[in-house]
């Protein structure tokens, strides 16, 4: 039977919603290959977007997401490149509108996955830059006192001009962005030897792929000891410890309650994070604030390994979107029965760490102080894109 493209996509969507209910933790969802004869480019594009959205919605269960944020960033960027190539647009303004619209849907699908929003903002900045280069304008379009004083007349540029090479330039720039994304973990690990010395005791919490690569790179040349806080209730720390042991790194796993007790013997704390906020603070896995406070008390440096795509222009004021709560079954299992009706159990996933507790950010572009984050942000994103 040869299905019409529309029928196939309907079946596809229904199938995915069934899967959502019964999906086990580790089951991967694969895309349906769309090599149908006569498949329209537009339906192909919208199908890919739909499949991406449904994957995003499903990935939200617990701290153990199905994919790391690096993969999410890469897939978002690849999807945006596809949109640029296949969608119908006449000038930069229309393209930005399309990307913004899709971006809003993507961020609404999974608000806690901030890398999606970050990549969209990066691509929007790329489009602005390519447009400015095309019309050979000033590339500095940000608000500043200087601009207030010297701009003569309206600087309202609606990006309406059409350039023949804009599409090619934008796609090339997005390819560069993808190359950068692929190299982030390596770039961060390359800096490991500067920060980790022999016979040091390093503490970390939970499981971060970036920190794992960082420590493994240093272990090739140095001998040191790692203490991993298990990070209940998901206990990702156990997986981290197993993985580090495989590289012959001496590892100890401790419960979260022992963090303060052990801190006096620790030389450095190296952690990963889910998001870096605009004020230099972190949104990291729960337990990180405790770790940061203990480190501050003992004057132990706290180093955060975070690639640039985790930098988000949000501030920690939005309480309703900041936290994510998952099933309290992890905290108080349903088997406890009677007590459940008498108590409230919460299982938050994230923690806020204020910028005063952080010593250094190590990213793919080098080491920076938390007070410098505003500058990195202004280089990556345009202020008008902060609100998609």
């Amino acid at each position: 039977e040869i299905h019409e493209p529309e029928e196939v996509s309907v079946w596809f969507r229904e199938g995915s919603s069934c899967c959502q209910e019964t999906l086990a933790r580790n089951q991967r969802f694969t895309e349906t290959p769309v090599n149908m004869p006569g498949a329209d480019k537009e339906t192909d594009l919208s199908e890919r977007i739909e499949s991406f959205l449904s994957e995003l919605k499903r990935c939200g269960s617990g701290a153990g997401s199905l994919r790391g944020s690096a993969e999410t960033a890469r897939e978002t960027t690849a999807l945006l490149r596809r949109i640029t190539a296949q969608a119908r647009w006449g000038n930069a303004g229309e393209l930005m509108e399309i990307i913004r619209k899709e971006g809003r849907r993507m961020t609404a699908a999974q608000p806690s996955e901030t890398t999606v929003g970050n990549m969209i903002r990066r691509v929007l900045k790329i489009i602005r830059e390519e447009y400015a280069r095309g019309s050979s304008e000033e590339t500095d379009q940000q608000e500043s006192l200087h601009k207030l004083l010297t701009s003569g007349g309206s600087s309202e540029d609606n990006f309406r001009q059409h350039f023949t090479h804009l599409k090619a330039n934008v796609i090339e720039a997005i390819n560069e962005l993808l190359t950068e994304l692929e190299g982030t973990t390596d770039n961060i690990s390359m800096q490991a030897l500067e920060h980790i010395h022999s016979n040091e005791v390093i503490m970390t919490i939970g499981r971060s792929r970036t920190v794992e690569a960082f420590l493994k790179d240093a272990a090739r040349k140095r001998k040191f000891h790692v203490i991993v806080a298990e990070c209940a209730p998901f206990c990702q720390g156990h997986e981290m410890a197993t993985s580090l042991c495989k590289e012959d790194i001496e590892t100890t796993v401790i419960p979260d309650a022992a963090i303060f007790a052990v801190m006096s013997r620790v030389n450095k704390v190296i952690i990963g994070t889910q998001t870096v906020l605009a004020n230099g603070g972190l949104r990291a896995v729960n337990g990180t604030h405790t770790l940061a406070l203990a480190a501050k008390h003992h004057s132990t440096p706290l180093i955060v390994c975070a690639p640039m795509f985790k930098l988000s222009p949000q501030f920690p004021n939005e309480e309703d979107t900041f936290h994510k709560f998952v099933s309290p079954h992890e905290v108080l299992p349903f088997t406890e029965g009677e007590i459940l009706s008498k108590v409230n159990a919460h299982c938050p996933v994230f923690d806020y760490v204020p910028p005063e507790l952080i010593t250094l950010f190590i990213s793919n572009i080098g080491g920076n102080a938390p007070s410098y984050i505003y500058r990195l942000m202004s280089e990556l994103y345009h202020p008008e894109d902060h609100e998609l």
Partner: protein
Amino acid sequence: MEERELVEYFRAQIREDPDVASAVAAIRSLLEFLKRDQSESCLVFRESVQGYEMRMLTNACASLGETILGLRENQTKAIQRLEETDSSVAVSSGGELFLRFISLTSLEHPDLSQCKNVMIERGELFLKKISLSRGKVGKLCHTFIKDGAKILTHSSSRVVLKVLENAAADNKRFTVYVTESQPDSAGKLMAQKLHNLNIPVTVVLDAAVGYIMEKVDLVIVGAEGVVESGGVINKIGTYQMAVCSKAHNKPFYVVAESFKFVRLYPLNQQDVPDRFKYKADILKTVKDLNQEHPMIDYTPPSLITLLFTDLGVLTPSAVSDELIKLYL
């Protein structure tokens, strides 16, 4: 235009529109002064810090009868006259910005009459933009006020009022504590204005800041000037409030428009120039300033959580960056 007329114009601006920021009124007066300026003679340029720039200008337009130099001289004198009238940091920063604005424009157009026309046009545009800045700040800041919040503020600030107005319009429920702010009891005025907006407000003594700090969720204050280090100059009592909020771990937010950025770098309270600390008439009449009470104090950037400006939400470390962009 005589200096007397300038001061009258400035005073009239403030009288007619009590809601306007004093820096905006100052810039408006300077623009009016510029329009009516009749400088025609070639002045001997004085050896000053801006000597090089002036030398460049005189060389470029030595053949012309009228010079930009004359214009600049007059503007500087006008700014000094205005500062004598109203010794606030805001007037000083507004004036400095305007002077900068002239320099930048004059470098582009060496011909005086053309320069003047461009300046007047840009001046009007600049005025229009900065009159919108308070609205922009209000829009940025009110999202940081959560439902059920208790806010502490100091003395009377029109920007803070705008922020609270926006938050109230957003149907957020919050209560406000205002310090009385002696010696001019400006806090009572603020309380009255808030009361008119149907926001529950309580006036507290200046000495009660430590007492009330445990109850509040956040502190929002305005600023008369934002200095290069990212600190602020504001009504006396602000520094106290900042220290208290740091001790209690409460966020301390400052709301200010970008034209209040000023090129000062005080390291402590003594470094703030006397002409800002005391009122203009006191400076002229009193011999021993040690006996007088200062009207403003300096809050260092380490105590400030975030600054809300029309250029965006800034951390204190970002302020110097903005200033560098303008002045270098």
